[in-house]
């Protein structure tokens, strides 16, 4: 299964574990399954519409992707806050 890697507050809310093997065929499916397994993450990555929050980036094997990107096998999925969300 693909591995979702979390950092910072997302890691803290997911049992304080960085790596999570999650079932799903797309990035969106992975993140929804992650929310099901770790309800404390719900609303932190995806909003009520099921969309990635504006200033969250997802990378698959180092490449920035969207919710519809297909994943499988040994893919490594990283969820990171975007620099666009920062402010002075």
């Amino acid at each position, binding site marked *: 299964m693909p591995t979702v890697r979390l950092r910072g*507050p*997302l890691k803290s809310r997911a049992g304080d574990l960085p790596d999570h093997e999650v079932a799903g065929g797309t990035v969106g499916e992975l993140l929804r399954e992650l929310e099901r397994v770790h309800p*404390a993450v719900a*609303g*932190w*990555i995806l*909003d*009520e*519409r*099921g*969309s990635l*929050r504006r*200033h*969250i980036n997802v990378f698959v094997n180092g490449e920035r992707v969207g919710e519809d990107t297909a994943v499988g096998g040994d893919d490594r999925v990283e969820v990171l*806050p*975007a620099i666009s*969300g*920062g*402010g002075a």
Partner: protein
Amino acid sequence: MTELLVGTKKGLFALEGSPGEPFAVTARAFAGEPVEYAMRDPRSGRVIASVTSPFYGPKLFYAEDPAGEWEQADGIALPEGGEAALERIWVIVAGEAEGLLYAGGDPGVLFESRDGGAGWELNRGLWEHPTRNKWQPGGGGLCLHTICTWPGEPDRLAVAISAAGVWLTDDGGATWRRGNEGLVPRYLPEDMPPDEVGLCVHRLHRAPTRPERMFMQFHGGVYRSDDAGESWTDIAAGLPSDFGFPLVLDPSDPDSAYVIPLVADMDRVTPEGRVRVYETRDAGASWTARGKGLPQEHAYLTVLREAFDRAGEDEGFELYFGATSGDVFGSGDAGASWSTSATRLPPVYSVSAQR
């Protein structure tokens, strides 16, 4: 001892002290995150804070002690699978029933909690209001920023939305009607239709000893209502400007109101570089400047709508306000004189005071 909960661009600050002297910072929570608003429910002692992470979205958290552990509240979200997402929670207010709290937010939404702030539900009557598709956001978004309860009557509420006007309910939020008669928006054509809802209310307060009496800071205008928000009369004559955001009342005097005028919508700073609070004791017939102890030279401050509050109800109650400069000012004599309570905080979004 008075506690101030100061929401800032970079976290929540809990301060303790007395008027006339600098307050001590006793806790900082949510470091680096915008904290729109925080309040301590006087009934339970619980502190509830609105935090809007630019990354992880708007959330409410609660704690018994601001320096302790915070829990995330449940239910602060719009219906799943819809076309809208919650942008921000602007304000939290204690209701008139045991454990009842309200939270207002963007996009023009009201949430209710009946368990002291741990779990929340969206008010469907306002969310599904048939005029909603006509509502337009103000500069800060489509924010429901004011919730006025009615002492002893939990079913009666007035809320204000920028820029969708005043909404009134007498049935606990099942149905809502407009409360905009008499408001004159200078930013709309004079021949606007009577059902226009694009009214940019900045702040409302209800006089607790005469609940039909309300005061409003409008986007260009200060108004009074004597019929519980159904209609409004302009009372801005005598102020240096009729633009501003915050408003506070003396709870024992229904003829009282305090405002902090800013120059205009195109120049949102204190007029003439002088920081002055204006007080009326005759329901808006006249206004008196209260600037003793406040900066009076080259002081161009911006005071946001939630950043002005009072503590206590007796004669000589305390007043506090914060500015985006990071300064917080306090008065221990109902505004007659002021001193600096804190300085060099991050830009202040909100102040709530209790003693």
